[in-house]
């Protein structure tokens, strides 16, 4: 369906194609209702209270306790947290702000809770949401969906039913076409290939799109600052969460550790020893991963002279020391505990690496100001710098986009 000057023109989905869609929350009617329903003001009271209710249900759910990603999510949607976001983003400048209408989200298939964050960003900004959730049956998804449904049953949140529709379907382009045609903003999580695939379905002329493409992230550690820190176990835990928790395969996971400062070697030993101890205890190692990382090490070795694979007692944590930050280094990256390492004398040596548009997050230990000279050189990459442990913290500014701005409309009132 497309809207032209207030006239509703329905684009009918062939009913046989509709059978390919499995509605996890809501149904076909919900989608049709969305086309008629109004957008909301951002941080609408009902939405904020509803999310708080979902948070309450999740926090009380015994099954949810086993999943730190659910708990983090539940914490993020608390009323207090929403109010904070409102204060940060909702400008009281005399203009009117309103949701854009219908959002079509394509969530990444192998991160369990990402779809929920995307949905919440859409709700808080006042939009109706069609979310394609992962086809894999992650337990986290069932737990969160149950909470979303339960809260929707309450009479005070009944009106939100036409703002949430969660679906699963295969790769049928017809379905992508349909949802794309009615979307005011399309949000594609995933990678370059997914984006290319979804872009085969056209959007309405005024519709917008947010794409989260393939990115890589890096870590910069000031060795002297690290050595002064009394809580090295905490730093190891933080770095573990930034990397191993998502098999070091999220766009936010550091692939290289850049060492600055004087006491690099002492710091390295402590840092990696602490991390290794944690990995040994917590990480579920898969037999093929050792072979994968050995293969990647050798491929790196032939790409440049003087690459050194640090000797290790096992395959849990592989470190490959590079003598310089050459072009194409990040094409050699791997996951599941495979780290490049670089000894840096001057932060500007990172310019090439960070001038890459694919470079997303710099996670740091030390004073963030050490990075400022680098940012000031006008690099084309790097969308955020965050302390180690915070790379996965979701915010309405994400991957370089201000989602609040992208997902609302501003009515200019003069």
């Amino acid at each position: 369906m497309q809207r032209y000057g207030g006239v509703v023109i329905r684009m009918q989905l062939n009913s046989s194609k509709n059978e390919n869609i499995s509605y996890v929350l809501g149904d076909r009617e919900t989608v049709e209702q969305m086309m008629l329903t109004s957008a909301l003001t951002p941080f609408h009271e009902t939405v904020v209270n509803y999310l708080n209710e979902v948070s309450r249900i999740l926090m009380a759910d015994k099954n949810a306790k086993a999943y730190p990603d659910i708990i983090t999510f539940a914490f993020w949607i608390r009323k207090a947290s929403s109010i904070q976001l409102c204060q940060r983003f909702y400008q009281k400048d005399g203009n009117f702000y309103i949701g854009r209408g219908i959002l079509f989200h394509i969530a990444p298939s192998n991160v369990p809770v990402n779809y929920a964050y995307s949905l919440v960003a859409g709700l808080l900004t006042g939009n109706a949401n069609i979310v394609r959730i992962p086809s894999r049956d992650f337990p986290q998804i069932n737990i969160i969906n149950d909470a979303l449904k339960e809260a929707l049953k309450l009479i005070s949140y009944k009106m939100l039913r036409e703002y949430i529709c969660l679906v699963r379907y295969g790769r049928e382009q017809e379905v992508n076409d349909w949802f794309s045609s009615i979307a005011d903003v399309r949000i594609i999580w995933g990678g370059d290939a997914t984006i290319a695939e979804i872009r085969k379905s056209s959007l309405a002329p005024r519709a917008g799109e947010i794409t989260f493409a393939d990115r890589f992230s890096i870590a910069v550690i000031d060795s002297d600052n690290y050595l002064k820190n009394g809580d090295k176990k905490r730093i190891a835990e933080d770095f573990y969460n930034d990397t191993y928790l998502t098999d070091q395969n999220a766009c936010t996971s550091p692939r290289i550790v850049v060492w600055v400062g004087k006491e690099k070697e002492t710091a390295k030993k402590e840092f990696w020893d602490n991390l290794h101890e944690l990995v040994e205890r917590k990480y579920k190692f898969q037999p093929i991963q050792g072979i994968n990382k050995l293969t990647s090490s050798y491929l790196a070795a032939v790409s440049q002279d003087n690459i050194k694979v640090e000797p290790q007692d096992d395959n849990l944590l592989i470190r490959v020391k590079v003598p310089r930050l050459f072009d194409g280094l990040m094409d050699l990256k791997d996951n599941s505990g495979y780290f490049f390492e670089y000894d840096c004398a001057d932060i500007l040596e990172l310019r090439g690496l960070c001038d890459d548009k694919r470079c997303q997050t710099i996670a740091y230990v030390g004073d963030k100001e050490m990075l400022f000279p680098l940012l000031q050189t006008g690099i084309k990459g790097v969308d955020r710098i965050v302390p180690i442990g915070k790379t996965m913290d979701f915010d309405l500014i994400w991957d370089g986009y201000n989602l609040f701005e992208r997902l609302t409309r501003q009515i200019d009132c003069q």
Partner: protein
Amino acid sequence: MNFDEILQIPPYSLDKKDKEKLLTERLLELTEHHRENCQEYRCMLDAISYYGSKITSYYDLPFLPVRLFKELSLKSIPQEDIVKTMTSSGTSGQAVSKIYLDKVTSSNQQKTMVKIVSDFTGSGRMPMIILDCPSVVRDRKMFSARGAGILGFSIFGAKKIYALDDDMQLNVERLKEFLKIHSGQHILLFGFTFMIWQHFYKELVRLEKEGIRFDLSKGILIHGGGWKKLISEAVSPEEFHQRLKAVCGLNRIHDYYGMVEQTGCIYMQCEYGHLHASIYSDVIIRKPLDFCVCGIGQPGIIQVVSTIPESYPGHSLLTEDEGILLGEDDCPCGRKGKYFKVIGRLKDAEIRGCSDTYAAKFQ
């Protein structure tokens, strides 16, 4: 140590100690040879700070993951010396291994195979039935693993026929006539496990219902290529043997384990169902977590070493197969050396994270 000297030694005659000495000496030489002649290999050894001086056993030599032969063109000879390039059989779109052979390595592969296989079939050629179609070997410059296997084993055949036509149909008349001419003789049959099951065994079962039965009780079947495809049909090795025996009387059946990256050094299955390492090569089972050596009975990743490869640095490779060492020097069949079992391919990793998995479905 010269490979010709090694070839003079019978394939299953050395015990652990003597074999270790022989392999250590030859494999150390090969490591140095490839370090000098293959730049990529040299970079890899440098990267892991391998200098070779302290090595006392071939167990401590570096090993390359077989996948590297898909990603890189690894060779220790000048381009003009290449006489054959062998490729692994991959489905279309998949990367294939490229193995470069010169005259010496190619001829040593064949000689080695003769030594190994003759130990099981007896020397002297036999009439041979290839359980495949002739088109597989038509392009002689680019050998697929299937083609290479067929050509490799063809040297054991005196008179040869292909049992299947190019449309993979069993040619009943051709087979009938061949068996008539050679009745009473021992006959060698060769093919790939899945092809045999799909296009030979199943057809024999069908023909039997029509009253046509072949007598292959004097046949010796050698087959390889793995069980992966048959697992989906729920056919175990034991059942494979029993059913073939039932339908055509085949009694001597030898599976083998081998790979295009180390052609020549195949691991033949003995009368007791064990795969055997000859003195020309060896298997080392390693723990996935730290690549430490596994003991008898402990499953792990199979590393293969071979004394043959001179034209490419493939004398020590880490496969993606899982296996178990069953014993060494004491198989009831009397052959010395290690005997083992292959469990199958390691599973691909299930990786979290937001990079594409959706995309993979479109390929």
